[in-house]
């Protein structure tokens, strides 16, 4: 894992998404403690204020919560919440760009559907 300061998204967004990925994959289970801002900032050499900003995005979304004196924990139902959020993004992020790329290459809608079916059989 590496956070890229020159990336399309700011580092704190990259960090929040990285935690989300780990919650979705089950690496950070619900009600379990996640690495602290201090640990993440030192490990990935990012500014602690930036790391805190990334954490706060997730606190505001209710994905993680703070246990006073203990650290940050994954909220109950966080994975489900993220999954439904990502499903909504799926259309915007993948389907739309898929169709516009297909149009650029002169691939018809039916051909795309055919390709998806072939891909889905894998």
């Amino acid at each position: 894992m590496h956070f890229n300061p020159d990336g399309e998204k700011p580092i704190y967004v990259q960090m929040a998404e990285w935690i989300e990925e780990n919650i979705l994959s089950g690496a950070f289970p619900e009600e379990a403690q996640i690495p602290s801002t201090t640990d993440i900032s030192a490990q990935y050499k990012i500014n602690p204020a930036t790391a805190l900003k990334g954490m706060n995005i997730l606190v505001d979304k209710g994905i993680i919560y703070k246990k006073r004196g203990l650290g940050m924990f994954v909220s109950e139902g966080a994975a489900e919440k993220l999954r439904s959020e990502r499903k909504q993004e799926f259309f915007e992020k993948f389907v739309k760009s898929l169709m516009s790329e297909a149009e650029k290459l002169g691939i018809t809608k039916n051909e795309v559907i055919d390709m998806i079916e072939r891909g889905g059989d894998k």
Partner: protein
Amino acid sequence: MSTIEIKNLSKSFGKNQALSDVTLTLKENCIYGLLGRNGAGKSTLMNIINNRIFADSGEILIDGIPSRDNDKALGKLHMMGEQLLYAPSLKVSEMFKAAACFYPEYDMEYAMKLSEEYKLNTKAKLQKLSTGYRSIAKIINALACNADVVFFDEPVLGLDANHRDMFYRQAIEKYNSRPATFVISTHLIEEAAGLIERAVVIKDGRLLLDEDTEAIRSMGYSVSGKASLVDEFAKGREVMSEDTLGGLKTAYIKGDRFSENIPDELEVQPLSLQSLFIHLTNS
């Protein structure tokens, strides 16, 4: 926690104007990147703040108190500079002990632990150390002193990739355990970019930029694609520079890419701190 106010600072060496009317506030508990090309005035600025050389005009206030020859105020500051302020015949451990006399919060145990991690021989004399290890000895000293404001002038000079990595990590660990202001001057911008909260850019002795690195991301962007399309888009916008390759063109443009309507055919990229720096300081 200390705040440093730099007011209308000017300094010349003979005919060479090293600093011209620099006004800048270094806020408490912030990691700064002090950036500038060779000879821009970075070291001069840090040397003046640390009372190692004197300004021609202007003043420095540390927590509101003029710093010049004020030992109490200067005791809140530490500078890891190019010069070795200790006798070259001193052993590394003797340098640590000497520094511990100046800084009441000096952490000797931490200094010895770091020395072990870097495999720095604390019994070696300073003059016998390689360039890299001399930097390491100064880095450890700077981190162990627990000053409110620590200046690092080219800290990673002569350090290999592993040791540079260790330095960035230790600086963050130290910041986390004992918040302070770190001012890091470096030419390796890309490496340190993630670490820096605020960037200060100096050009020809003048302050060019003092901005949060997050905000810098929206100060410029590049668009690339077919030259004719890029030219059309660039018209009426502030172009910092251009690269051409065959019929393709990349234009580096000032402004926030999110407030622009950029045609789909053009590839848009945010400008990194390093490329923005290059464009700002190219003369």
